[in-house]
């Protein structure tokens, strides 16, 4: 006992740990990472996660292609990224070690399941000799545990077949890591009870494996020091751990409540957007209707049909689906009906990297329709921000009667962070006004309804079927402004094209001006959009800590751009635009403002790290300084 007490006394404080769980697709790494994250969240750490998994459900076991990883950064202070590099790597097999060791920080800790390092698995991973013995891991702190064997032994008196017991080895790893990094045990034990309710042997096996892992930590001479990351001093409030797709789903529900009209989701399964369909399908008591459509086109078509009927019509997808929906989105532009099209971007083109992140659909969102078909674009910047971005997209769509594209990405979708739950009373309501009366008197003195008669914002009335006296016909054929009757007149088409552009441009007056984060008097301004917010913020803080000045402008609205953006950009010596594409926003800013913006790009399927961006920004700061 004294030994254990002494060990407990050895716990060192750390301000943060970046832990990466890596194993075979069937090893339960996502679940293990998720449990560690939840326990850390409840403990009060700030955190950010980066789940990474192959597109294949079960790639051949033991191969590099089948490695599934989950990275989590826990911290005692406010953080915005899942970490530059893991400080701890848990590798459940040789393939996981081979694939992820290159990511580990020099001198980091490697925790391996030594049972999996047999000849067959080593060969599958492409190791010619055993990396546990050949010096590969020199310079790292290595903790080996025969996880498979110890898990089987822990389960042997529980009536669990050895083969089934083996499946619990991820809980052994979780127990060991929980001990090493001083995580509370109870939340995981309670969670096992709930998750596997009714399957008593599974509960018993998982708990036994978890306890065995924990005990192994306590008793074995591990050679790695125990660390404790204290709770973070976050703003007071009630917190929950949330990922982007869940936050986005809840934002849509909130928008429906704020607007007082029902939510309709038309969707076709596609990675990484499907979880929004799954989440919304659960909440029928909010009056949410979900349609799993026969294809992407039907999904957006049904959403548009529901919008015509007075619902909040939403469709969710990723890049390939965006391409398929384009014609219907163009129809919505022509009909001037509200519609929210949500693009959870992934690596492209074509099927590309279904489970990896990218933000290369911006120009498609801007221009990817035939004809002149402008529409507003809104982007989410962090997992929890997806909640507010969804509300904003719905607000613009219904108040301005236009399709809106809301952009998130695979990283935001699956990454989670603590979220201070907002007071629902403080959320701004969304104003909905359905037309109820005729709005025009024709030459015969008769009161009639003109579907394209506009208000001062150039917004047309939303007259829904069922309203007496307002029967009207709308369609994708060019129509006369005002009456809405079919018109092929040259002057009318010219006027309508200009009107459709102008009414979207006018939305700039109904969105807040953009604000500078950091130092507004800095020489260098970084303009970002979407999920790069976290890495840009992390980079800015590092540069500030080192005494440098940097301005950060992050765009919620990509179209129309905020009214003050052009002037703001002209006040900086240098504008840098980091993007997970080949420079799409940069191109837009250059075209719009004639600003000599510099592009920093990354298109590897991975989000930027704060370190990468800090280096890129520092070099700009240096260049400007040197030119003086």
């Amino acid at each position, binding site marked *: 006992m004294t030994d254990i007490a002494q060990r407990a006394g050895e716990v060192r404080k750390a301000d943060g740990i970046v832990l990466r769980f890596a194993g075979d697709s069937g090893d339960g790494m996502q679940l293990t990472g998720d449990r560690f994250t*939840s326990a850390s969240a*409840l403990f009060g750490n700030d955190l950010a996660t980066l789940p990474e998994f192959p597109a294949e459900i079960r790639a051949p076991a033991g191969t590099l292609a089948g490695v599934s990883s989950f990275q989590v950064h826990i911290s005692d202070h406010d953080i915005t990224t899942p970490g530059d590099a893991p400080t701890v790597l848990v590798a459940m097999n040789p393939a996981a070690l081979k694939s992820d060791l290159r990511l580990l920080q020099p001198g980091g800790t490697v925790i391996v399941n030594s049972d999996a390092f047999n000849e067959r698995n080593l060969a599958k991973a492409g190791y010619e000799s055993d990396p546990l013995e050949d010096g590969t891991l020199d310079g790292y702190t290595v903790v080996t545990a025969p996880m498979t064997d110890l898990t089987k032994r822990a389960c042997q008196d529980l009536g669990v077949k050895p083969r089934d017991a083996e499946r619990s080895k991820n809980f052994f790893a979780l127990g060991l890591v929980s001990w090493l990094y001083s995580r509370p045990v109870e939340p995981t034990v309670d969670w096992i009870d709930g998750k596997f309710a009714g399957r008593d042997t599974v509960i018993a096996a998982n708990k036994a494996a978890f306890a065995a892992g924990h005990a192994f930590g306590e008793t074995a001479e591990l050679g790695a020091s125990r660390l404790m990351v204290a709770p973070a001093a976050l703003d*007071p*409030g*009630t917190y*929950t751990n949330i990922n982007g797709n869940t936050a986005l789903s809840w934002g849509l529900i909130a928008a429906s409540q704020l607007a007082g009209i029902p939510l309709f989701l038309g969707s076709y399964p596609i990675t990484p957007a499907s979880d929004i369909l799954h989440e919304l399908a659960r909440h029928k*008591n909010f009056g949410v209707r979900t349609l799993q459509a026969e294809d992407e086109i039907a999904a957006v078509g049904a959403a548009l*049909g529901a919008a015509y009927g007075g619902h909040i019509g939403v469709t969710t997808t990723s890049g390939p689906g965006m391409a398929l929906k384009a014609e219907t989105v163009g129809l919505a532009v022509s009909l001037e009906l509200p519609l929210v099209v949500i693009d959870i971007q992934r690596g492209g083109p074509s099927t590309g990297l279904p489970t990896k992140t990218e933000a290369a659909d911006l120009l498609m969102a801007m221009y990817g329709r035939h004809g002149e078909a402008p529409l507003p674009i809104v982007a989410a910047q962090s997992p929890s921000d997806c909640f507010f971005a969804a509300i904003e997209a719905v607000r613009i769509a219904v108040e301005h009667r236009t399709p809106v594209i809301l952009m998130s990405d695979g990283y935001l979708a699956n990454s989670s962070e603590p979220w201070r739950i907002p007071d629902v009373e403080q959320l701004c309501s969304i104003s909905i006004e359905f037309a109820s009366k005729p709005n025009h008197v024709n030459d015969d003195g008769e009161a009639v309804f003109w579907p394209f008669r506009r208000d001062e914002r150039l917004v047309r009335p939303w007259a829904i079927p069922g309203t007496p006296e307002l*029967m009207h016909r709308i369609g994708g054929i060019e129509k006369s402004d005002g009456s809405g009757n079919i018109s092929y007149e040259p002057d009318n088409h010219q006027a309508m094209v200009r009107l459709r552009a102008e009414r979207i441009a006018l939305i700039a007056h109904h969105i807040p001006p953009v604000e500078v984060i950091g130092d507004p008097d800095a020489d260098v301004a970084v303009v970002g959009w979407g999920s790069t917010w976290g890495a840009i913020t992390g980079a800015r803080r590092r540069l500030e800590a080192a005494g440098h000045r940097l301005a950060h402008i992050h765009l919620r609205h990509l179209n129309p751009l905020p009214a003050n953006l052009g002037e703001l950009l002209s006040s900086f010596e240098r504008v840098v635009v980091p993007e997970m594409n080949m420079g799409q926003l940069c191109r837009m800013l250059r075209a719009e403002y004639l600003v000599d913006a510099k592009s920093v790009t990354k298109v590897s399927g991975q989000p930027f790290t704060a370190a990468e961006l800090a280096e890129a920004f520092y070099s700009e700061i240096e260049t400007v300084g040197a030119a003086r």
Partner: protein
Amino acid sequence: MTDVPVTTRKDWATDQEVRWCPGCGDYSILTAMQLLMPEMGVRREDTVFVSGIGCAARFPYYMNTYGLHAIHGRSPAVATGLAMARGDLHVWVVGGDGDMMSIGGNHLIHALRRNVNLNILLFNNQIYGLTKGQYSPTSERGKVTKSTPHGSVEQPFNAVSLALGAEASFVARTHDMDRGHMQEMFRRAHNHPGAAFVEVFQNCNVFNDGAFAAITKRDARDSMLIDLRHGEPVRFGAGGELGVVIEGGRARVVTVAEVGVEALVVHDETHPDPSVAFALSRLANTNDVPTPIGVFRAVERSEYGSAVTSQIAASQSKAGPGDLRKLLHSRPTWQVA
């Protein structure tokens, strides 16, 4: 429905100039619909016509109801969303054979399968009209058109067979030369809860004139149209001298005098199994043989929109109406002081 105001055909017609070619079969379908509507006991504002692209798809512009002229092929999808959102509306979908069986084939079969409360009218003229005369998915083999100068080598769809195969709960066929029969089919479609599919043989007098003349012209109808009547033996021809029997699952035309009336198949549109209806639909795959018209199938099945609404009601009575605050706190939470 006693409080529905009395209307006439004029109330259901718009002020828009009808722009189909003179002599087009679409005119008689429009007239049939405008004359029928005042008798249906529905309000104009509760009625919506949704269409895709094509000549037939201009239909909504001429009905003084709500109307949505969407894009090519997608009308069943758009209408599905509308009908799901608004179970109080009467939603009609109008399109041609190119619109609904080619580019929109997928949406059509899924709307039928789901049994969404839609009245789907397929104006089948076996040609592309608006794009000026290419062969369509219902054009006969050998059809010479601009895009098949050597004749089409494709097998056409039989629209009724396709609808039956797509699990449709209501399938009917009519033609543009018989207003009374069209109106009867439209009325039946309207009264059917769920997806009702009506194929209308429609003459395109510019690009495919007389495609159905051999079966629909007045003096041919008796011998060439087999009028299906629920509960009655399937008979046709002058004085009913011809009839249909089902043998080994296949339908065959017979002379009643030779087989006796009792041998004829008695039409049962309500039979849960669509096999006999399908067999009847296979009697005619070209327009030069006796062709069944009328209601092939009319069975009751859970309607999609109301099933969705029931799930919402059940969920609300179980969990209570949605409470946003509760939702945001529904996962594990912790306090920071």
